[in-house]
């Protein structure tokens, strides 16, 4: 059905999407927790900045990433100086772009699930002798877990479909940054590439559909049965 090259594209996409999701998850959780529970000046601004990748043209996000990770950029020069690595034109750069674009969606889903945790249960746990960390680990985290998983799946799906920021940031390098959307774009511009476009598009739709349904099922689990009374 698929050629080795096409399997390579699918495998690369899954790798980029998975790494992006796993790396973004702790950041998204920390930000979601801060927004759900924190009270600090400038919260609205933090909230807005997190949501920027959702509304700014992806090409702008990609360009900002390029500036930051370029050899002379603030993050790029640091990576070069300390680790001798650059993410430009690399799959790791594609994962960064996918992660940044997925962040707002993940933060939203996780924040909702944290806000849905009944704080009276946390109070009950405190009176039973549990300190803040134990309450977090044994009450807050498990109760918001379905929402966290749903956010992760959603972020993964978003990362799989990432196009604009990726192509701007790390270009369209076969075998390195050419994920499904970029391969479809390349095939569209190649005479006789129609069959490939069809096949890759079908795979994209199937993967996205599976992720969305998975995310929805997890979110429903979060809403069912886990509430007191």
């Amino acid at each position: 059905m698929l050629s080795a090259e096409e399997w390579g594209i699918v495998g690369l996409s899954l790798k980029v999407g998975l790494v992006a999701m796993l790396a973004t998850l702790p950041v998204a959780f920390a930000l979601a927790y801060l927004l759900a529970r924190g009270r600090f000046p400038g919260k609205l601004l933090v909230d807005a900045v997190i949501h920027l990748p959702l509304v700014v043209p992806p090409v702008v996000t990609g360009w900002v990433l390029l500036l930051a990770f370029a050899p002379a950029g603030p993050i790029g020069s640091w990576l070069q100086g300390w680790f001798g690595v650059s993410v430009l034109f690399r799959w790791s750069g594609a994962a960064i772009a996918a992660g940044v674009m997925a962040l707002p969606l993940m933060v939203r889903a996780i924040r909702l699930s944290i806000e849905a945790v009944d704080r009276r249960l946390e109070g009950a746990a405190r009176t039973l002798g549990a300190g803040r960390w134990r309450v977090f680990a044994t009450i807050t985290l498990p109760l918001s877990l379905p929402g966290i998983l749903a956010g992760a799946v959603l972020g993964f799906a978003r990362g799989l479909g990432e196009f604009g920021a990726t192509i701007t940031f790390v270009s369209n390098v076969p075998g390195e940054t050419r994920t499904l959307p970029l391969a479809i774009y390349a095939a569209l511009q190649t005479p006789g590439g129609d069959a490939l476009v069809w096949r890759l598009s079908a795979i994209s739709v199937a993967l996205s559909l599976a992720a969305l349904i998975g995310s929805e099922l997890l979110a429903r689990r979060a809403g069912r049965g886990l509430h007191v009374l």
Partner: protein
Amino acid sequence: MSFDVDVTRRLGDSEIACRFAAADGLTVLFGPSGAGKTSVLNMIAGLLRPDAGHVRVAGETLFDAGAGVDLPPERRGAGYVFQEPRLFPHLRVRANLLYGAPSDDRLAETIALLDIAGLLDRWPRSLSGGEARRVAIGRALLAEPRFLLLDEPLSSLDRARREEIMGLIERLRDGVGLPILMVTHDAAEAERLGTRIVSL
């Protein structure tokens, strides 16, 4: 003195002020709905911070605005049975019971006292009101508290269950020897169970 409480707290437009001192036994905090009885329990448990005053239980200062003492709830040793059971929905009854317990040494004894042996492997959402109430009491007792706070422990129970829980509270009052502070708006309950009654 078992309880030496003098707290005030502003909540919205109303001001809650409560002051009493009580010796051993079961002290009933009695008053109409909305008088702030639950808020007083929350202030004693450390879940709500008083604006001023002090909370001393069994000789230990848990809160003193003047001296800057404010123990976190986990160090106050309150066995708090809330008005609604507040069982942890993601844990089975056994894990709920043992959540605050230093060990499971007293599990068998507590299960027998509360007659909940058959419930251990159940999920909280499958329990009836009376069962959940008993599990909540067991969870509070197993944490080996220094005192008990009972918030309307008989509300929303049918008559048979009320009688059962009332008997249990009498056994706790007469047997375990922990200072107990119980909130109710029911005069007959207050009359029957209270060693003394504080009106709010």
